[in-house]
């Protein structure tokens, strides 16, 4: 993350505050900052979303292309994550600066989507061994205000929910070749089923307690954190410890428990919002950055 310069006394002030369940911005240990999510903000993508969590700003565009399936699973589609850190977020991301952070985030996303139930890829296969849909999820990080993993995962779920894949017909052409014909009506699409999509919850250890949704300052004084992928039903879909410090074994079950509950609440809130937004007519004015 962007380097935040804090003196030792400031760090102690934050950590002692957390021990008494009170953080600098008045939240308790299990509170999230204000989240704004908006889908369908970019017109020439198949699905997109914009998210602001506190002062972390993320934008995700999903483009769907035809490609050849992986020989190991011939009738499944593919999903690729690509993360790009814009220098708008921090001057150190200029040129090749943000590469390490973006490869970290894309690896974590690949890890939590690396199972069969997260996204049913078999619906993306078209012709086994020959053609399938390749879903490119491009994440653009516009501002780093701490807790990037959660922000990116919520934005990815929202954009996948908003992704419309054109309904194509496979007709048998001459001597056994198959032709693929695209629908002429752009709105003739089918949506990806995302109710099993996981969300990431980062639980950072500060002193003897742990907090959720750490701001950039709080992140710089917690030296160990657990990033857990949680589904709507509270199951985990991948987990990884981040940071240079170590965790004591007794506190790990507690942290996973918190992650599970918080993850479930996040899912419920997000699904409610997505349902509301789907109901709206899709030609209303998008807020975007105005």
């Amino acid at each position: 993350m962007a380097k935040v310069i804090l003196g030792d006394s400031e760090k102690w002030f934050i950590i002692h505050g957390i021990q008494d369940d009170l953080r600098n911005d008045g939240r308790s240990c299990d509170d999230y900052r204000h989240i704004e999510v908006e889908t369908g903000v970019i017109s020439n993508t198949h699905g997109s979303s914009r998210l602001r969590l506190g002062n972390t700003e993320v934008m995700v565009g999903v483009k769907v292309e035809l490609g050849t399936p992986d020989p190991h699973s011939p009738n499944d589609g593919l999903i690729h994550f690509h993360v790009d850190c814009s220098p708008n977020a921090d001057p150190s991301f200029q040129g090749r600066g943000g590469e390490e952070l973006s490869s970290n985030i894309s690896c974590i996303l690949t890890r939590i989507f690396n199972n069969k139930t997260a996204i049913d890829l078999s619906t993306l296969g078209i012709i086994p061994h020959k053609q399938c849909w390749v879903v490119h999820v491009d994440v653009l990080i516009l501002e780093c205000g701490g807790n990037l993993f959660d922000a990116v995962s919520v934005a990815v779920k929202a954009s996948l929910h908003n992704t419309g894949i054109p309904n194509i017909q496979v007709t048998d052409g001459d001597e056994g070749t198959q032709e693929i014909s695209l629908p002429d009506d752009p709105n003739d699409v089918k949506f990806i089923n995302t109710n099993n999509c996981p969300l990431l919850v980062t639980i950072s250890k500060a002193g003897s307690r742990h907090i959720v949704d750490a701001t950039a300052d709080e992140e710089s004084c917690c030296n160990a954190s657990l990033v857990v992928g949680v589904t709507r039903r509270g199951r985990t879909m991948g987990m990884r410890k981040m940071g240079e410090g170590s965790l004591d074994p007794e506190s790990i079950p507690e942290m996973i428990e918190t992650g599970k509950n918080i993850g479930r609440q996040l899912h419920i809130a997000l699904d409610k919002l997505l349902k509301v937004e789907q109901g709206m007519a899709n030609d209303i004015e998008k807020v975007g950055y105005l």
Partner: protein
Amino acid sequence: MAGMELVSDQGYRIDGRKPSELRRIRCNMGVFTQADGSAYIEQGNTKVLAAIYGPHEASNNMRNRVCLDRGFVNCEFSQATFSSAERKKRSRGDRKGRDISAHIKQTFEAAIRTSLYPRSQIDIYLQVLHSDGSLYCACVNAATLALIDAGIAMKDYVCACSASLTKGSSLIDINHVEELAGCAEFSASILPKLDQIIYSELNGRIHQDELGLLVDAVSTGCRDIFAVIDQFVRSRLAETASYFTHS
């Protein structure tokens, strides 16, 4: 291909504008909290975000470019992978990106009063969210708004507009389709009040006396853009000023 039917015989363009009509401009300032100055501009479907960091001490890989008597401008242009219709993973160092950042750097080194910030560096970062033609002009307008938001001293607003030439008449503020049409394209940055051109770029071949036609078209376009931006900045200033004076 050149001279494709850009202007219909009733005088309307493909997206329904008249030849001398700008696309709808909508802008916003102060979009980010961590950048010193930030702005967002939408010219039709071209959407650009700009962020300003500085004036600050030169970062260690730029240390050899520090000049003693004035600040120097460092610019980086990056385009989101999903910004154009066809997905392209552009690494920031590619030719088109470096071109536009070099042009913008020259433009703003002329516009910013760098003598007020000696030995320091001003970073201009531009991120294109959605590209639909005349990227350079949208970036210049966005950078101007961001510099005003950052409170950096400038000689005047810098407004940029592009124009193209078909069948003797000029089209202003061209979009992606008109760019692909292949006729000559002229874009320029202008200081509206001082009425000076500080940067201009022409690609494609035109007859000599048609150049005057293009320059007039672009300067009128820039003056209209200036009017829109200036009106927005004044309304935003009036709004923030009202917070302090309890009128």
